[in-house]
Every structure is written in C-alpha cells, then in structure tokens.
C-alpha cells in the first residue's frame, strides 16, 4: 500500500523488476567472501582472549610455529603502534598490543594448510596474562573505583577538564530554553529510568576475507563489507602501508546492518599472506562473531517529560549513558541528537555520557543509538497521553514538527513526512480496527538523520545500445536494481538493458561506506548525474549527424529527437553503433559529495497479546508507515521497512547479551541469542509514504534504518495496554514480564 503525493509519471522508477543479481542468489552461484578459493590458499585462525580485561605479559608462539602445516604466526608486535593516529584504536581492536580489553579480543593469528591445523596451532600459543578488574555495566564503569581501561582517557566536554583518567569518554549536552521553567508550567510530568542491553546485528554471514599479497608489496583483498574503500584505507592504516598498496574487491555481502562498516580480519590475512607468500583466508565462526564483533551498545537512560493538559510537550530532560564497548565512540551524542526529534518543544536539557567498558567495541546497527532513545521518549509520551486522556496519535500530531521548525540538534527541518506517517497510521485499517481481545495496542514514532557523503558512478554505453552502470556501493539488499532503475529512467533504456556492477577500489571512483541509508540516495545521485552527462553527449552526436544546434535535439524515451522535426529520431542503439565513427565510445563518470539527505521518519502500530501465566508475548498485528521520499523499487523499500521492524521486535522481546561474572559471554550462539524466526511473527503491513526529498533528482530519502527505531516503544506501549505494566528494561522477555506481573499483583 502506498500513500502517494502527486509525482511525475515515471516509466521505470517505482516499478518492481526482478533484481539483476537475483538469479545467482537463488541458484547458489552468488559468491560471498567465504566462497572464494585460490590456488595454494592457507586458512587462518585467530587466538582470542579468554579474559575481559588483562595485561599481556608475554606471548610464546614457538610451539605453534613448529606445528604441521603452519606457515605464519603473527601477534600485535608484528603491526605498527599507531598511537593516537587515525585508526589507532581500530588497530588495537584488530589485534591487541599490551592489553586485552574484552573476552574475544584478538591476541594472535595463525595461517596453516588447513583450518584444523590453524586452530590446533593457535591453541598451542602460550599467552601469559595479568588479569585486571573489569566493568560490564554502565554503573560499574562510571564508578570512581572502576579499573581504568585506557590510561590517557580524559573525559571531554567537562569544564574544567578532569585531571585524572576515567572510563567516561565524553559528556555531551544539548540545551534549549529553560528546562526548570518547562516543568513549572507543566500540568503533567512523567519520569522513568530505562535500560537496554547490547544487541548484535545478527547478519547471517560471518565475517570473512581472503588476502593475496604479491612479491611487489601490493595486496588484493576479497571481503564482505559495506564499503570496500573503507576496508582499503583501514587495512592500509593498520598495516602502516600506503593505501595504494591495497586493492579491495567486494564480494557479495550476507547482511551487515551497520556491523560491516569496519574491519576485523583483513590486516591479519594480508600480513600472514605477505609472510607466507600464499593467499590466506580467514572466516569467523558464529561464536567469534558474537564475542568479537560490534554490537550496538547497551544504555541507561533517565528521562523526564513535561506537558500541558492539551497535549503540548513543554520540555524534556534527559540523562543518557551509552556503552561504547572497549574503545571510545560517540553513541550517547547520537542518542541526544535523536531522542526528541519527532517532537517540537521550547525547552530541553539533554545530557549524554559515552563510556568504555570491557565488552566488544560498538559497531553501527541500523540508526545507531536512536532506538533506545525513542524507547524511553515514546514510552513516556504514551504515559503522558494516558494521563491526560488523549489519543496516542493525536498527541504526536499535536507536537509534530514541520518544515522550517528548528530540529533539536541544530538545523531547521527541511521537507519532512512525519505528519503524513502519523496520518497514514491513523487512517489505516489496522488502527481503525478494534484491539483484539486480551491484547494491547501500542504506537510509536522514530527519526533518523540519513546522510549523503561521497559516491562515484561510471556509466558506459555499449556498442549494442545497452549500458553498464558501475558504482562503488556494495549491494546489501537490492541497490543494483535501484541504480539500474534510475539509469533506465534517465536514459530511456529498458531496465534489463542496464547491467549494474559493484566495482572494486581500482575500477570506480571513491565511494564512502554504505551507512546512513545513503546508497540509493547518494550513489543514485551519482548515477543520475553520469546519465545526464551521457544524454548531453548523445544529443551532441545527433546534432553532429544532423548538422544542427544541440539545443534543437531533445532526449525522449531513449531517442534523440529533432525538435523542429526535420530528422527522424535516432535511437540510443543507433548512436552507440556509430559511436566509433562519430567521436569514440560514450561514457561518463560522476563523483560527488551528496548534500541534502532527507530526514527519515516512521510511525508504527502493533497489537500484542501477553500470556499472563507464562509472560510470553505474541505479536498479533504490525503496521509500519514510513516516508521513503520516492520509492525507487517499492518491494525493496517494503523489505527494508519489514526487516527493520522485525529486528526491533527481536530487540524489544528477546535479544540480549548475557555475561558471567568474569565477563565471558554466555549466549554466543543463535540458539541462546534468539533472533526472531518466522513462527514468531505475523505479516508486517507496510504503508510507503512518499513526501519527495527536494534535494534528490527523484525525491529519494534513505529507507534503510529508521524502521528499527519505533518498535521498542511501540511494543512496550502495547504491553502496557495489555497488562497495565510499564516495562522500562529490555528485553521484555517472558521471565521479565512474569516477574513484573508478580510485582504488580503484590
């Protein structure tokens, strides 16, 4: 279902062709990183820390090096110490130097003839550790007697600057108006404390790479990532190499959701390949993925919301602490920037604290930091609505920002579609239907910035009148089809006459990593720009053939048309067939830094049944409305919306990291870290709202991330509606709900 504003009549944009890379993916031919086999290839394995926090006193690799089949063993000492240089922390995360900072931290790596030989040799490496105290929670790591993770870490954002190191990375504060005045003017004030645990992105493909380092000192890396140009620069930095020595070829990527925007394995494989003279493949196990790759952080949030009896939000005060994992990040800052964005208000005081602790370092996960913030904010707004007897959609419409209003994080809102999302849910069959018996209904909204960044595209016209579109954005879920659709629309070529290709780091211009829902927006913009350049070239060829001014030639539906009508139209194929004689082959490249990524908003409604005997929840019905700007391929827009929702459902109801007292993860498998399965769920109904982004030639705004933001609060609000419980700690797993029901009875 689509709620569409008036828009141009496109021929290809907005249709649903079979994706170009689809066939290989349903017949088992698509090649992911772990599928590559090279002649003479060795297999790598990584030795990981069993301790949450320890000094490395010594590492003895002699026994391992003497074992059968072993060709190379490396430790942190084999890599340069980058100190505070860019990617210095990343380098220390790829392989520990003096300290291990979490269980699973890489300590050494082995390359051998078989995986078994590599594993056996890794287990023969002797590491002497001096075990240190560790912190696993925000409270522990912020306490004055916490063991310090990084000696030089002085908290930023506090005046005067502290003189002693702590585990608090930074304090961030966003302030507007006078928060005390806001609460003094409020008719109703609600406040609660919330907590969430780290959540893994849970991509089904474990991290994998193959590196082949040649005698010339250059290396070729095949890997699964969300951005091979970042893999190139990060790998080179960690090795202390010049970037031009590294070529990265993108394999198909088996899911990322933000988690494959960084590197873990590549420098180890490159170095071991250089030392052995053989290609080296490293593939993580699922256990390693859980223990050593980035989750989205856990959080502890205290929010206070004031409102008037007419529903007007007067102000929000927030104290928000976010885990960063073992190395500093900016999760809390993003939390502060997103927490109140779906609402207008005169007063706010938002304070964020980023902290390090002894867990794997954060990686991005779909709208990073926003879901936990929205969980707190939209739960409290639901409570306000309940207290003043207002419909949960009406209170959101009443406080809804529109174009020109100041966004909480600084700029003025451009054209946005939150109001349209709220109205779409209000008018949906789902919201108009009665709540099922013994169930509850919840509403929530979400916001994500979306970003532009650098993208490149090269479009070549082939002599037979087809086109090849090469971009630098890996296809993480249908972007080849999106690029082909935009190129088809521009050139007037059938979408299947376009071959979309993901180029490696040496065949296409620099392209930033796929993050911030940017691929279809920004890389699509580069494709459109290159196609427009080509259309000008095509018109010039026709004008030369016709000996007329180029202004007399229009490009219409794949043909050069002489506007005065003196010549018969020339098809694109006719022009390309003659191209060698008329000036050479036709091709164009565009590289740009895309501006004006349209912010994304989404509103969700969910019906939940709660079994009061067991605490088990069942999602009965779920509807999401999301502003896509313009849906280039609606099926894959719906897919992003549905996928985000279901990840949010898992986060709300089941998923969590469980550590023992020593800081070791106890549920590092898909059996014990339970992501949603098909039988847990209903169909996820989608309403694509289209409020075009004026900064994009087709009105695109990113759709990848915002879908994960509202489910946490929507589900908590539905659980409240069903049971009367306000659940403020995630996940709302059966034991938690059962315990809360028990407390409520007492």
């Amino acid at each position, binding site marked *: 279902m689509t709620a569409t504003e008036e828009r141009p009549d496109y021929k290809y944009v907005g249709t649903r062709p079979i994706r170009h890379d689809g066939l290989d993916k349903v017949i088992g031919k698509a090649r992911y990183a772990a599928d590559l086999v090279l002649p003479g290839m060795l297999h790598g394995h990584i030795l990981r820390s069993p301790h949450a926090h320890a000094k490395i006193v010594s590492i003895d690799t002699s026994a391992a090096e003497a074992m059968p089949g072993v060709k190379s063993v490396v430790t942190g000492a084999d890599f340069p110490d980058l100190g505070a240089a860019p990617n210095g922390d990343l380098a220390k995360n790829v392989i520990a130097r003096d300290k291990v900072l979490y269980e699973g931290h890489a300590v050494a790596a082995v390359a051998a003839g078989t995986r078994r030989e590599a594993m056996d040799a890794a287990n023969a490496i002797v590491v002497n550790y001096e075990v240190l105290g560790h912190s696993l929670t925000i409270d522990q790591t912020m306490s004055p007697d916490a063991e310090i993770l990084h000696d030089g870490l002085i908290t930023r954002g506090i005046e005067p600057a502290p003189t002693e190191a702590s585990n608090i990375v930074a304090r961030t504060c966003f302030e507007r108006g006078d928060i005390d005045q806001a609460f003094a003017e409020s008719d109703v004030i609600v406040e609660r404390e919330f907590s969430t645990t780290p959540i893994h992105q849970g991509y089904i493909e474990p991290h994998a790479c193959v590196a082949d380092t040649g005698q010339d000192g250059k290396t070729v890396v095949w890997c699964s990532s969300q951005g091979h140009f970042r893999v190139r620069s990060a790998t080179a930095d960690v090795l202390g190499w010049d970037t031009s020595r590294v070529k990265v070829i993108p394999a198909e990527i088996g899911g990322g959701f933000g988690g494959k925007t960084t590197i873990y394995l590549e420098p180890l494989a490159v170095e071991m390949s250089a030392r052995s003279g053989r290609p080296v493949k490293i593939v993580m196990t699922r256990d390693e993925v859980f223990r050593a790759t980035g989750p989205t952080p856990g959080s502890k949030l205290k929010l206070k919301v004031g409102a008037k009896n007419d529903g007007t939000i007067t102000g929000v005060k927030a104290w928000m602490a976010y885990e960063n994992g073992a190395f500093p990040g900016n999760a809390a800052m993003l939390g502060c920037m997103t927490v109140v964005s779906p609402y207008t208000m005169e007063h706010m005081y938002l304070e964020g604290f980023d902290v390090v602790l002894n867990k794997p370092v954060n990686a991005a996960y779909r709208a990073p930091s926003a879901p936990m913030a929205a969980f707190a904010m939209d739960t409290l707004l639901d409570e306000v609505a309940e207290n003043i007897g207002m419909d949960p959609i009406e209170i959101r419409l009443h406080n809804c920002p529109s174009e020109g209003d100041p966004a909480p994080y600084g700029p003025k809102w451009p054209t946005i579609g939150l109001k349209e999302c709220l109205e779409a849910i209000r008018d949906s069959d789902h919201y108009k239907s009665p709540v099922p018996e013994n169930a509850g209904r919840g509403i929530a909204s979400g916001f994500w910035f979306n970003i532009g960044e650098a993208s490149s595209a090269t479009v070549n016209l082939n002599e037979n009148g087809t086109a090849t579109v090469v971009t630098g954005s890996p296809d993480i879920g249908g972007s080849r089809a999106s690029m082909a659709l935009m190129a088809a629309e521009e050139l007037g070529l059938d979408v299947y006459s376009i071959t979309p290709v993901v180029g490696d780091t040496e065949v296409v211009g620099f392209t930033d990593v796929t993050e911030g829902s940017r691929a279809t927006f920004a890389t699509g913009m580069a494709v459109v720009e290159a196609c427009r350049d080509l259309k000008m070239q095509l018109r010039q060829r026709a004008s030369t053939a016709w000996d007329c001014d180029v202004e007399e030639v229009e490009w219409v539906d794949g043909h050069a048309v002489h506007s005065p009508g003196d010549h018969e139209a020339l098809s694109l194929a006719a022009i390309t067939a003659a191209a060698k004689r008329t000036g050479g082959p036709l091709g164009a490249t565009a590289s740009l830094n895309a501006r004006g990524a349209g912010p994304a908003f989404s509103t969700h409604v969910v019906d939940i049944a709660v079994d009061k005997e067991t605490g088990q929840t069942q999602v009965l019905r779920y509807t999401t409305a999301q502003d896509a700007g313009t849906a280039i391929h609606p099926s894959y827009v719906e897919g992003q919306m*549905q996928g985000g929702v279901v990840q949010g459902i898992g986060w709300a109801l089941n998923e969590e990291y469980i550590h023992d007292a020593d800081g070791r993860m106890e549920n590092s498998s898909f059996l014990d870290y339970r992501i949603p399965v098909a039988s847990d769920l209903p169909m996820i109904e989608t309403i694509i709202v289209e409020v075009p982004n004026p900064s994009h030639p087709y009105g695109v705004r990113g759709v990848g991330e915002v879908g994960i933001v509202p489910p946490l609060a929507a589900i908590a609000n539905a659980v409240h509606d069903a049971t009367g419980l306000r659940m403020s700690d995630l996940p709302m797993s059966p034991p938690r709900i059962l315990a809360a029901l028990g407390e409520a009875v007492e």
Partner: protein
Amino acid sequence: MSRTHVICNINGDDVEFLCDDGESLLDALRDDVGLMGVKEGCGTGDCGACSVLMDGKLNCSCLILAPEANGTDLLTVEGMADGDHLHPLQQCFLEGAALQCGICTPGFLIAAKALLDQNPEPTETEVRYALAGNLCRCTGYDKIVRSVLEAAVQIRETV
C-alpha cells in the same frame, strides 16, 4: 591420516570424495565437492543456511558427518532448477523480492521445498513453522512466507 571414501548422489550426479571422519557434510560439500551454494551461518544447526535434502529429508548439513552421506541422495540449492527452468520456489522468491542479502536464501529454498514436497497446500502458519529453523535477518520473513505460499499455488496449478 587416512581419509574416508564417500560415494553418493548429489543433485542427480554420482559423486565421490575423500573426507576426514570428523568433517561435517557442510565442509565436504563446500571444500571437497565445491558446492558453495550451501552456506555456513553458524555451524551449530541453529540457522538453517546449510540446509540440504538427504534422501528427501531436510537436514542441516553442518550437523551431519560427511561419511554419513555414503550411499545417500543429496539435493542442494544448485540442484533445484531443471536446467534453465527455475523451480517455482526460485521464481517466486525472485518475483516476490523474498531475498535481500541472499545468504539465507539457499537454505530457505531447500526447507520450503521439503515442506511443499510433503504438504502441497500449507497454511501461512504451517509455512511459518516449517521455516522456523531458518534464520533471515533482512526480510522479517513476510516476503519469504508470501513467496512460498505463491509457489505452492503455482505447483498445484501445474500438476
């Protein structure tokens, strides 16, 4: 170390390979036979990406020892199409946009075939339970379930 000689039929072809006794069928299919369409997502039987049919029955190949395959008939995703003619499940997955990253797709196709071979007219709930051993993190399952139901209709109509 001596290796075990295994003879079986894979996707209609007689195949022989040598394997270690402790090797999983998944590793044998990928490393010894070269069938890279069989994917490893966990290695512990929790994700279903390595699903194969062994003598018509659905199995996680990571939980089977390679020597156990001796004398069996195996079907992997590579064997689902009839030449250039895709299996209706494959066609419906493409038309229904039932895949995003595609890493779980081979396992889902095999698990769905196992269901439809047994139950040509499943309900939505039966599809959801039959596929509950296969994890997909991209789609939220909606388009997968719809595509399996659509394929069931098409298969019934052509029989």
